[in-house]
């Protein structure tokens, strides 16, 4: 699977179709309930992505899991898609899939940027590296999911404060539930992200030049992000006044930074890579 372009494009087509149809349903006056054909299309795209990641891993000997930015980005798209599909299945969170599916398509499209850059050198992928990448991507998925829910919260809150009926009304969960979802996604994401960073640190201290790693932009930004999220979580859980609109602003701003870090730094060469 040295040329991943076609299967990744097919999967992106599926995701884009599913995402656009799901988002278009928001304009309907009657919200769609339950599983629909576009969800099935999204599942097919997700399965194709997983197959692609596995085949690319086994393309080298020994297998190299998540060795390239492309694989990592595809995995992120697949996980965001999975969150969207779970939301479509759960009655309480139905409607959020209309945001997660298009977002997964955008992330998938961004994966193609990674193909433009030079391949990383083929090295062994030890277990710590796979765990490091996997936990970081899982953590990022939680942050992205929480941030997206927070963004929906802000849109709905804005309409309610402007004394008008939002187009989202009836299509997305109420504010209380969006707040809960965002809060718990962040809470779940931070330990995963922390574990990812810790595995990185463990390897870093064993490296030849541990302090040189500390100047790496990816490492610095990851620490910065960790601090930001830890601060947000402390604020949300210990000081209730940071819940609701204020918490949503914090989560949305943080997820914007996450995406910048993920896309910009992950797609450009750095010592980290």
């Amino acid at each position, binding site marked *: 699977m040295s040329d991943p372009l076609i299967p990744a494009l097919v999967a992106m087509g599926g995701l884009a179709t599913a995402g656009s149809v799901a988002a278009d349903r928001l304009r*309907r*006056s*009657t919200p769609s309930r339950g599983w629909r054909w576009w969800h099935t299309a999204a599942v097919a795209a997700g399965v194709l992505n997983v197959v692609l990641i596995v085949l690319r891993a086994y393309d080298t000997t020994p297998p190299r899991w998540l060795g390239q930015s492309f694989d990592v980005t595809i995995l992120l798209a697949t996980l965001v898609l999975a969150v969207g599909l779970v939301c479509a299945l759960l009655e*309480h969170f139905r409607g959020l899939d209309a945001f997660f599916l298009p977002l997964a398509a955008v992330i998938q499209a961004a994966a193609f940027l990674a193909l433009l850059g030079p391949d990383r050198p083929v090295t062994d992928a030890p277990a710590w590296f796979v765990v490091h990448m996997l936990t970081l991507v899982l953590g990022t998925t939680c942050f992205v999911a929480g941030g997206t829910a927070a963004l929906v919260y802000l849109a*709905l809150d804005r309409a*309610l*404060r402007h*004394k*008008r*009926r*939002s187009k989202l*009304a*009836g299509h997305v*969960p*109420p*504010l*209380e*539930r969006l707040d*809960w979802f965002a809060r718990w996604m962040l809470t779940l994401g931070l330990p995963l992200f922390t574990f990812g960073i810790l595995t990185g640190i463990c390897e870093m201290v064993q490296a030849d030049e541990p302090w040189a790693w500390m100047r790496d932009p990816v490492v610095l930004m990851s620490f910065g992000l960790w601090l930001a999220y830890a601060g947000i979580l402390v604020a949300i859980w210990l000081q*209730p*006044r940071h*819940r*609701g*609109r*204020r918490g949503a602003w914090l989560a949305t701003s943080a997820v914007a930074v996450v995406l910048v870090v993920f896309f910009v730094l992950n797609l450009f060469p750095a010592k980290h890579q």
Partner: protein
Amino acid sequence: MRTIVVGCNHRTAPIELRERLAFDDTSCLAALSAVGLRYPCCETVILSTCNRTELYVARPNHGRPRIQEAIAVLADVRGVPLHEISPAMYHFVDSQAVRHLFKVTSSLDSLVVGESQILGQAKMALDLAKRSRTVGKALTTLFQRSFAVAKEVHSATGIAEGKVSIGSTAVDFARQIFAGFEDKTVLMIGAGKMGELTLQHVLETQPKRILVTNRTREKAEAVAHKVGGTARPFVDLLDLLVEADIVISSTGSPEPIVTRADIEQVMVRRRYRPMILLDIAVPRDIDGAAASLDQVFLYNVDDLQQIIETTHQQRQTQVAQAERIVEEAVREYSVWQDRRGIGPVVRALDSRLTEIGEGELEWLRHKLSDLEPAEEELIRQMVHRMTRKILHSPVEALNKNARNGEAKVYAETLKTLFKLPDEA
């Protein structure tokens, strides 16, 4: 079959007349049976709501009742003199009747465009007709199609979006804020009529607790008793606000009774749990500045009226699109009905030609008495093939023109040319 509808609604008849023509379930069943006895060959449905009373009839092409007879029967079963109801009655026939029913169930003909009650009422009307066995395939199909059209109109347009009363609008907003109401407390401040009406709507959400407070304790107790809540002293207002998630305020106080500072203090004590404040009072009871606080959603009577007005305007903008859907549905229904109507003509034509063929075969059998059975069978097959071939073109033309809506003309022509019976 022909479909006719006679009736009156809020536009054509004053409420006094509508009241006299209105049916409850029992009188509706009795009326349907009476009409059924008088006109056993026709199907009837009576649709009776607070805004309309309509009699839908499907009868054979040249059967009865005619329009004036249908109006008379409606007057008769309600015991209202014919001359009193005649000026208020409208009537529609065939595709006009279909269009009218589609508009009625889609709530395009309602007092409040976009309301959804009428759909349930029409379903109930059909159900009553089924129970009294006065409805058959024609009206059942028509009504069921009208339900599908109504659903399509509601889902494809924004005609049913939003709410059109203060109470329901408030509940609509509360549903966008709270995930559930089973753990929520509703507080009513004051005992105003408007507040009570709003509370009735809020009660539909089945909150956990209802608290009522008023400067006059007896009034609070009276309202609390009526709604199954608890009366609490007015002096504890701030404590009550800490407990409450939905507050309805409608006192006659000339000054705000709750200030921004009060709400700020309350929000700290309730750990910033979201709170919806419905200030129905004029002058206002709650300081408008409180609306800027996080997790506080404050709506006064003007805000709610404005939302209702916007909803009305938005619904009106959707009417044209809804009518287009109805028109398309009427066209499709007429085509379907026409196609259904050509079946008997084709069958009659078929039997006419078969009859001619059989007659000619009989004649031939007398002339050629020494025919072998095999030869006779061959001739029979030839006659049958000729009949099929002659039939082919007219049937094809009928089917084709059914799609254009001209099948009736062709069917009538065939009936005249081949002297087919009227019932075809």
